[in-house]
């Protein structure tokens, strides 16, 4: 039973979500792994690796007081996971343009066809309501070489989106 679960949490942003959730997990004897937590559209979101001997039902029970008090939605799922498996991305792709349907779909499809494996993506809608702009930063690994990705980037550019591909040269010292 001592295996990793992924905790997914969403709720209106308010102070104390992280402290109260992680305290409840700590008191339940759970171990925490890698996490991504951020505010999206006024909601606070958590993706958190949790390792525990307890069942999903028991862990959910441990969090129930906090979840009810703060009006959060959570779910645990069993995952096949391990730590110390980071892949180092070799490039960063920045995309921005006037917001319109299909930017993400077209960009990521072109990158997929070029053998690009996305390791991290975050995106935002900025500008104004009348004239929204879409900004996306992608980190990943060019599994079929950078030349293929460069070609994909040119193809995306031809579609009227600003795209910039920069190598990510990690300095290991």
């Amino acid at each position: 039973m001592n295996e990793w679960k992924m905790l997914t949490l969403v709720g209106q942003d308010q102070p104390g979500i992280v402290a109260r959730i992680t305290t409840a997990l700590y008191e339940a004897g759970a171990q925490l792994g890698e996490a991504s937590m951020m505010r999206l559209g006024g909601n606070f979101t958590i993706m958190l690796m949790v390792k525990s001997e307890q069942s999903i039902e028991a862990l959910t029970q441990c969090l129930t007081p906090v979840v009810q008090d703060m009006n959060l939605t959570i779910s645990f799922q069993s995952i096949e996971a391990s730590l110390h498996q980071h892949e180092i991305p070799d490039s960063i792709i920045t995309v921005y343009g006037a917001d319109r349907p299909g930017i993400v779909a077209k960009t990521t499809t072109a990158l997929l066809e070029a053998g690009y494996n996305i390791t991290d993506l975050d995106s935002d809608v900025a500008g104004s309501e009348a004239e929204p702009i879409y900004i996306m930063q992608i980190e990943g690994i060019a599994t079929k070489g950078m030349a293929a990705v460069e070609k994909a980037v040119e193809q995306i550019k031809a579609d009227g989106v600003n795209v910039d591909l920069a190598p990510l040269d990690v300095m290991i010292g």
Partner: protein
Amino acid sequence: MAILDILKYPDEALKQVSEPVELFDEQLQNFLLDLEETMRAGPGGVGIAAPQVGYFKRIAIVDVSSKPKIKHNGCMILINPEIKTWEGMKIGREGCMSVPDYTGNVIRAEKITLQACNAQGELIDYECTGYEARAVQHELDHLDGLLFLDRLVSRRTDLFKRKVYKK
């Protein structure tokens, strides 16, 4: 020659400030050979500092010449190094043999000038830019007990390249 063991954080010894080298003797020459071999044995290692192998003297080696298309000074043996000038700032991704399985963003000066003794104790002036300047600053931090973990900035910090707009 031998590949030396790398100290890994949370080993508190990595936080120690190293002492200047005073004797440029045969023992030092042998240590430099071992240190260089240890650096080259590391995956993608372009630099190493003596405290990383538990020798708390102000010695570092930087060699970024294996990286394509960048300016470099070849293999730099840096003994009692001192950075004289700093210019510009840039965010870049760093990792460390003493902190396996983690990379993070660090702000470093883009251009530095420094003075250091070579293996024979002769004082040499260097000018480093970009990737090489980053490597030197990372290694020299080790001599003062600092890890790149002490200088992390947000992964979400703006990584847009500052471009010179042509029109």
